[in-house]
């Protein structure tokens, strides 16, 4: 995700549902409005849970990218 400045990132690989989602919520809580935070998850359930939560909370899913075998990075902008 080139060009996106990540304010805070957490590698939640090794933790399972709901660990990565709760990590994303924790980062968003601690971020300032406008900042982008990122969570890396190796849990398959995160591909559904994290975008669904971002949508519910009306934040912006900046992108999702593969970062290794079975792991994805989720980027979320705290836009309000």
């Amino acid at each position: 995700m080139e060009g996106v400045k990540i304010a805070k990132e957490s590698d939640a690989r090794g933790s399972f549902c709901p660990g990565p989602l709760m990590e994303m919520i924790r980062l968003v809580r601690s971020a300032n409005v406008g900042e982008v935070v990122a969570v890396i998850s190796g849990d398959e359930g995160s591909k559904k849970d994290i975008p669904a939560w971002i949508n519910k909370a009306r934040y912006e899913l900046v992108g999702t990218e593969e970062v290794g075998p079975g792991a994805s990075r989720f980027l979320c902008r705290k836009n309000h």
Partner: protein
Amino acid sequence: MKTILILGGGTGGTIVANRLAHGLRPDDVSIEVVSDSPLHYYQPAQLYVPFGEEDPRKIARSERKLLNPKVNFRIDTISEWIPDKQLLRTAKGENLSYDFLVIATGSIACPEAVEGFVAGADHFYTPEAAYRLYHKLSELEGGRLVVGVGGIPYKCPVAPLEFTLLAEAFLTHKGIRSNTEIVYTFPLNEVFQIASVVPVVRSLFEQRSIRAETFFNLESVDPEKKVVKSLEGTELPFDILVMTPPHKGAAFLRGHPMADNDGWVNTDRNTLRVNGLPNVWALGDTTNLPISKAGSTAHFEAPVIVEQIMATIRRQEPPPGKATYNGHVTCFIDAGYGKATILDFDYDHPPTVYEPDEFRHLQKMAFNKLYWHLVPTAVI
């Protein structure tokens, strides 16, 4: 003479101490439990206090009397842990050194961590809070009851579900169910974190007209307007708000190199050793393991740690299969109306959930009474 220090006088610490005292000779070891309270609380009983079914003065007993006489008991609060020196400092100014350390300091409900919680919300995670809630429920004449989970992880994952179901039955018996709306909130996209449990809970909620509000991460409580707000932007008005407060580990563990910022100790999921240290273990609510923070967890973990300590002192290998924790947890779910079900699972086997019945309820009621005789004393 080896020194074994056990921090915490709850279920996990007490079982470990009593099993070690039973298995080791006093000439070989000194065993000491350090707790900030002279009392041992049976915390599952707090769930029943708001409904007048348990007396909050009768859910705690003397920790000293539950401990084997060969175990020393110190009432003090740990203020600092220095692993490199195998040393602990206490609030009373003592320095405690150890050869083996077991951390069982548990989890602490932190209502003050959420804006407006203390003034506007209730909970049942201390005997005092549960008793205040008893008075409020007794005086309730109708309106909206909001029950929810204010942060993950928290102590006893099924307790908020049980509270919701018991409250529904309580309000029905009181004759005010028809003019009381019940809303249950949960931080995730479902009503519980274990998928196999969800259909049974959803079915019970539907039968009893309990509305669920999911993806509700507690942000703040407005005590004046009686409104609870979520991070997701949802606002719920309430007459009584019963929220599970965010939980944290013991204060001396928060931000410690061996734990995370909230004080959950880095623990191996099988050996229960802390952060790779050869002589330090953690169990129960204290750990960062992705399993239930529940008394049964500590109960099943305790023998795993005891076997490792005894084998080390005896310079033997631990008995095959007895020094590995497999994630075993057992939880009752009281569904109200004299019925309950049970969850039994481990790392590899999610729970199979059955419809609540009278037998499980009787089993739970019996266990609540037998706990004092069987569990801390390490009879089972």
